[in-house]
């Protein structure tokens, strides 16, 4: 039951990732096509800070971070757990994946929050 729930979450976050990662690509990598500004301009420090001060960006990026980390690390855990290993080693893999995920999520959230709270005018 627990594995079914974890697998269901793995599938449920897919639409979130597709939409938000699509937006991320459009803004950061395909700005000339979708927004009519150069990539350099879109990645400029001031532009990046200005964008990062939006509440919607703060929320959506944290959501993307959580969804992509969960999807990616759950997938990676599945690949590793398919390899021959003892149950004890499997448990260590699970705990390591959870710890890495939580650390990266906390760090990514901190960076996003840092951008959001960056003082106007530097």
């Amino acid at each position, binding site marked *: 039951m627990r594995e079914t729930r974890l697998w269901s979450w793995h*599938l449920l976050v*897919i639409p979130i*990732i*597709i939409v938000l*990662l699509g937006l991320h*690509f459009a803004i950061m*990598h*395909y700005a*000339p*096509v979708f927004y009519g500004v*150069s*990539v*350099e301009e879109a*990645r*400029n*420090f001031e532009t*990046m*800070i200005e964008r990062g001060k939006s509440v919607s960006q703060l929320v959506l990026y944290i959501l993307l*971070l959580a969804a*992509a*980390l969960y999807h*990616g*690390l759950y*997938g*990676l855990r599945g*690949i590793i757990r*398919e*390899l*021959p290993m003892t149950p004890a080693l499997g448990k260590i893999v699970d705990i390591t994946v959870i710890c*890495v995920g939580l650390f*990266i999520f906390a*760090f*990514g959230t901190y*960076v996003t929050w*840092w*951008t959001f709270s960056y003082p106007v005018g*530097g």
Partner: protein
Amino acid sequence: MNSKKSTAYNNRLGIKGWVYAGKYTFERYLYLAHRLTGMGLIAYMLLHILETANRMRGVVAWEGLMGLFALPLFKMIEYALFAAAVFHALNGVRLLMTELGFFLGRPKEPVYPYSSSIKRHRPLTYIIMALASLIIILGGSSLFFP
């Protein structure tokens, strides 16, 4: 090898089991590509978060890093990342539809000439891969010739 170990782990090929697709079908190779792109994307994502944190070191550090990413080599890496993400996403949508039972046809008795669910699913596979190829080509042209 002790008997307990061989009983516990028999029929598990380890990494060879998923790397070598042998005589299996197109979908089996897509499975392999899905795994490889997935691992590449998660590895990149972890690096990307660390790289994004560079903004906290200030304007000069950030602009220096962005200058580096404007080099042709990094443009190629960026494009490979885009291609991997598009393939992984669209193949993932195909897998999701398969998981939910769509486009597999009705179950049939195994009477000759056989019609497997994989064969009935094949047109969708081709359509999705054609769509992925189109997006990847368009993405490349927009990235390199804006």
